[in-house]
């Protein structure tokens, strides 16, 4: 969080030269403090080291597939364990498409929840609703998957897809036959799963916006909605982006619920009605029965790609936050 306040601490005699605060002067004063510090440093460095090891293992295990297929692994669509020909393009596409679709649905929903809870909801309603929304995050993903198969997909088939087709069927995105298990079902399940994360963090960010911001806007004659839009949201935008990225990270790696509803088909289709596949789902599905070395190596390479995609997405997000956070908005330092 923020750095410690540069204030004299009561009860501790001041005897140090000025320029160095008393608190800082205490650091390292005692031997046990130094040991404590080193232990903490060690633990803190162990985590980045773990990531490097993880990357290294994934890379080494993928080497046979990397050598055999080269860059074509990224752009070809055949996944044939019998002939030992592997291409991961459909899974990369499916992972990105389902996560993007999930964000498209979840972001407006989660931000609405957060704005309602911080700005408009009556006080007695805020805690219970916030609690229930966060409770969504506690549901195991296999339960979401089951719910997706037995409730969501029949609901989509009967009430959502026919009107969607009638209105937007002419676009390539809503074209073709709807079988049930599809990119659409996967994206919606993911959206429901990431709403609580985005909503909870967004709520914290909005709560941290100083009341003076709202008061100033209201004093200028803004309505409450205008105050939210022009004063509160811009103030917290870095934090809100961070909340969305947190949700995206969750969506990219989600496995069980997605594999149960997305159709698990190695195909690239632009229509959301078509079945798709994600990298995480393929690894989970095929790992246990990957009998040949090349098959296993291809799955490791999928893992490596997923790892890289996640790192890239997070890096882009970090850059984005830095750029919008130049005006030291709320939450930017925390993220």
């Amino acid at each position, binding site marked *: 969080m923020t750095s410690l306040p540069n204030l004299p601490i009561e009860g501790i005699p001041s005897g140090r030269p000025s320029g160095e605060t008393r608190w800082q002067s205490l650091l390292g004063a005692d031997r046990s403090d130094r040991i404590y510090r080193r232990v903490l440093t060690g633990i803190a460095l162990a985590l980045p080291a773990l990531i490097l090891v993880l990357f290294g293992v994934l890379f080494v295990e993928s080497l046979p597939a990397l050598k055999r297929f080269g860059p074509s692994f990224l752009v070809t669509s055949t996944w044939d364990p019998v002939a030992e020909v592997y291409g991961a393009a459909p899974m990369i596409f499916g992972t990105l498409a389902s996560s993007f679709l999930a964000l498209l649905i979840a972001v407006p929903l989660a931000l609405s929840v957060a704005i309602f809870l911080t700005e408009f909801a009556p006080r007695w309603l805020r805690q219970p609703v916030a609690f229930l929304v966060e409770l969504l995050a506690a549901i195991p993903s296999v339960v979401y998957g089951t719910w997706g198969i037995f409730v969501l997909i029949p609901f989509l088939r009967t009430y959502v897809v026919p009107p969607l087709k009638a209105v937007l069927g002419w676009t390539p995105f809503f074209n073709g036959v709807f*079988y*049930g298990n599809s990119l659409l079902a996967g994206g919606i399940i993911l959206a429901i799963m990431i709403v609580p994360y985005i909503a909870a963090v967004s709520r914290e960010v909005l709560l941290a916006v100083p009341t003076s911001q709202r008061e100033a806007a209201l004093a200028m004659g803004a309505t409450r909605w205008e105050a939210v839009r022009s004063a509160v949201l811009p103030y917290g935008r870095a934090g809100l982006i961070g909340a969305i990225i947190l949700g995206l990270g969750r969506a990219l790696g989600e496995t069980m619920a997605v594999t*149960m509803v997305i*159709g698990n088909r190695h195909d690239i289709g632009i229509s959301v009605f078509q079945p798709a596949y994600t990298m995480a789902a393929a690894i989970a*599905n095929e790992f246990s*029965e990957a*009998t040949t070395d090349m098959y296993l190596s291809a799955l490791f390479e999928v893992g490596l790609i997923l790892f890289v995609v996640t790192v890239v997405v997070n890096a882009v997000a970090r850059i984005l936050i830095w750029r919008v956070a130049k005006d030291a908005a709320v939450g930017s330092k925390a993220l």
Partner: protein
Amino acid sequence: MNRTTFLALAALLGAAVPGGATAQTQLNGAGATFPNIIYQNWMLAYNQTHPDVKLNYQSIGSGGGIRQFSDGTVDFGGTDAPMTDSAIAAIGGNVLHIPTVLGAVVAAYNLEGVAQPVRLTSDVLADIFLGKVTKWNDARIASINSGVTLPNQDIIVVHRSDGSGTSFVWTDYLSKVSPEWSQKVGKGPSVNWPVGLGGRGNEGVAATVRQTPGAIGYVELGYALINKMPFATLRNQSGNFVVASLESVTAAAAGAMKDMGATTDFRVSITNSAGAQAYPAASFTWLLIHKTYDDSAKARALVQFVWWAENDGQAKAPELGYAPLPKELRPWIQTRLKSITAGGRAVWKGPATE
């Protein structure tokens, strides 16, 4: 002191020393998920009569079972798909495939208003899974289902998305009956499916079939029976339409025995079996056992357990949804078990020495 007297003495000693002092033999296995229920049941029952032998089986999948067995992490493996020649060569041929029970795979479907079981021939079935027959009222389906009104509905194929012995049996069957399938797709625990949706596990395929009007997907017979799913009657090699049942599955193994011969290594596929009443999509599930072990006590305990499973254990199969092996297979299995050695000596001389 010759070996038998030594053994007898050892047995006497073992019997004389009360409980805690006898060394408990721990046997670990891992592999196929399909036979997991009956293996757990067997191991529990066996441990009650043989408290000195503790068996443990983890259902991690056939591929994982073969890997762990080959690496020597476990004492025995379980698999629904036999090891390939190259995999056997990689461990110096030190493996025996011992069949334990039989499984079958059925084509479950979701057709509202069709009460009678749909009949399918193997070539129509293959063409459905190839995506060439796409409507339920296709003339080729209608011609073998006279008297049944089939809807003008798209056929939606559902297959397993996870690697599975069930998929192996199914694709092995389709490969045998359809040259096109064999050439385009082939057989394996996971294949490149020409059409369809993927479901995770039997339960995933079953749920998708149930929720998707017009769907057809393959699941294990036991799973379909327990969940009362309608499944297709398949025409076998002899031209008879056969309902999948424990009896018709055992008949498939019996029908395949002629082709196997007494010296078989049991790595045979019994899909598309020749028997008149044989269900065509049936398969053995195997235990993987080494030909030679280092620890003779362990090896003996394992072989005795397997022989018990091949005899007393078979009676438990039907109630748990597995088809028992044909009795005629037992002498062949016994010969194989007798050949297992530890330290250059046979560990088991057959049931008489027990």
